[in-house]
């Protein structure tokens, strides 16, 4: 085979294994699921045997108050988790962006929560939240304060706290990296002009970190919808449905209620939601860029 021909095929050869695997194990299943969401499908049937019911699954879900509650919980969870993690993570990065001895050791210790398996994280927090022997309630006892029913009344808050524990380091590390790659010239100029550190932060550091922050926020947002194992181990979606985020509800509908068609329809709703959020964020960023470009153009004109 001539060299030219080989070269033409090279990119395809490089891409092929990845494309094949993703097609087989990601694209096809997704299509299968969309196809399956229009059927009344039981786990023991193959999809061909399942009865076609049109949009019935979607309509059932639309009217189902449990689905609405689960959706609400998911949105609440994602919103609080991402907001708190961003604020705390960026705040910590700003605070700790100094040259101190042993920073790398500290960073090592900070990434530990992220690396531990979600199942184990769920375990640890379930123990700590235990009503009688858990660490928190025992501390409260020691201090003479009333015990808190962590996994009962405040289940959602408790889960949010656990997630913040696990993922704030992610935001922290990324923000820190962004901070440390900022051009020092801008900061020096500001300092010479007499800007206070607070002003430095608001007007220089954060705007310059914006691109990274947005990407980080988006990544975290997408991942917030994937959280499942931690919640499964800690509360299993209870009490009631107060911590049953959509991913958990989908898995329950599939394995416990054995209604794969409904689970598939719910998955589609979730995907649409994620798509809307991602597109929304992209548009927002694009808008910001356009505005920034316009301002820059205006400044250039004035000069």
């Amino acid at each position: 085979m001539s060299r030219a021909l080989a070269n033409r095929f090279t990119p395809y050869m490089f891409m092929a294994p990845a494309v094949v695997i993703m097609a087989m194990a990601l694209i096809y299943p997704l299509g299968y699921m969309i196809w399956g969401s229009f059927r009344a499908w039981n786990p023991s049937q193959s999809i061909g045997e399942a009865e076609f019911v049109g949009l019935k699954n979607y309509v059932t879900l639309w009217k189902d108050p449990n689905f609405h509650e689960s959706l609400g919980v998911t949105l609440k969870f994602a919103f609080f988790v991402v907001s708190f993690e961003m604020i705390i993570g960026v705040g910590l990065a700003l605070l700790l962006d100094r040259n101190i001895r042993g920073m790398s050791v500290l960073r090592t210790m900070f990434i530990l929560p992220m690396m531990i398996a979600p199942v184990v994280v769920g375990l640890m927090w379930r123990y700590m939240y235990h009503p009688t022997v858990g660490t928190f309630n025992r501390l409260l006892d020691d201090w003479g304060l009333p015990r808190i029913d962590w996994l009962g009344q405040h289940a959602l808050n408790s889960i949010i706290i656990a997630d913040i524990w696990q993922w704030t380091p992610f935001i922290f590390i990324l923000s820190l990296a962004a901070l440390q790659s900022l051009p020092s010239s801008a900061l020096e100029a500001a300092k010479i002009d007499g800007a206070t550190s607070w002003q430095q932060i608001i007007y220089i550091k954060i705007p310059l970190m914006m691109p990274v922050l947005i990407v980080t926020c988006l990544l975290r947002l997408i991942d917030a919808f994937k959280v499942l194992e931690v919640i499964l181990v800690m509360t299993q979606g209870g009490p009631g449905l107060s911590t049953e985020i959509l991913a958990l509800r989908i898995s329950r509908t599939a394995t416990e209620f054995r209604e794969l068609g409904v689970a598939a329809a719910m998955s589609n709703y979730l995907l649409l939601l994620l798509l809307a959020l991602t597109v929304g964020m992209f548009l927002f960023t694009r808008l910001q860029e356009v505005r920034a470009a316009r301002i820059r153009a205006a400044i250039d004109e004035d000069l």
Partner: protein
Amino acid sequence: MHTLLKSTAVGLTAAAVTAGAALAGPYDAHKGTTLVVNFPAHPHYDAVMKILPEFTKETGIEVEVDQLPYLKMRERQTLELAQDEGDYDLIAYVVFSKADYVYADQLENLAKYFMNPKLANPAYDSADLIDGYVYNIGFAGGDRGYLSGATGSLFGMPYGSETSVLGYRKDIFEKHGLEVPQNYDELLALACQIPELEPGMGGLASRAASGHHAAHAFLLHLNPLGGAIFDESWEPVVNNAAGVKAAEALKTIVDCGAEGSVNFGFGEALGSFLNGDTAMFLDTTIVAGQVDNPDKSKVVGNVGWALHPMGTKRASQTGGFGIGIPANAENKDAAFLLMQWLTSKEGDKLVAMAGGNPSRFSTHADADVNAKFPHMATFGEALQYADPDWRPIIPVWGKINADLGTTLSKVLTEDLDIQEALDGVAARARTVMDEAGYYTWNE
């Protein structure tokens, strides 16, 4: 000379073989087989694990066990049973799965095994099996589909079945001069009185976690108080006055219970009692074995047992597990032999001595068993009041159960109005039943 020796040898060998064949035990044909079984992680089956080596010693059949938490076990089973060829030769099924599996034709009808002279043990004594359990757990196709009746037949054997009983702290009761509650009014009064008498202690430990647990706890009170889920023509009546009373009873109990009880699964409720945090415990008899185990319990020697309190009648739980042979199993005959051995008089006594739940009247009355577990006598008495119609074992029960449990959990945690909540459950249950065709003959 050679020929003579040879023919003698052949003759002797032939005789030996024939003699051997004639004396062949029932297990010889299956020696060396390995059975794969699916059991739940449950105290009764932990006891079973201890006696399985006995079975292997006696029969030469190896047993490999897959133990899973029982709700996960159910999920695993529904998948395996639907395959053309399954992995499991014997499964332990949760009682309410009887409906699903039999309806989908996934369990072997045991008739042909009992008819097979090579397999059926003539000394089995089926009259000794506790009939409430047999009909509730093993029998299908009778009246209303799940009760005893002339039209049904046996698909599994009860094993690890349980009824409900009241455990109480003798020392606390003595200390405050309390009487063991006989009926529900006394029980509820006591449940809320105890936290006042003993600060920090809960009244009655009950399961209440969302889903299956809350529903189970509710059913414990529904039947004695005269309620039911459905009436004769399958119309939901769970929201009638008795149903509301049962839900109120549950709420009272949980409110006066230990810290965090709204989230208690069975394990936590039991743990609360064993740890000494609660004064009473109303749930299955399986816990008896653990109460006197110093590794797990701090209340060893302080627990007394009484019958499930009476409402308008005495109706304690019938539930637990049964064992059956999947239709897609590989070694069905050997599996039947295991099933028969486990539920035989000897097997039942062995498992009772190891801490499990007996399935035979004779085991409850046995002197050795009673010497080791004195509560067996009370349990034997409780069995008389076990209500076989404790819950409807129909294929759609899983969905209704889940809905009931989630709604009740909301009643407990979010203070949902009880009548409204039960009305909702009844309405949704009716839709499910309608779709499943239960009202087809109602015109």
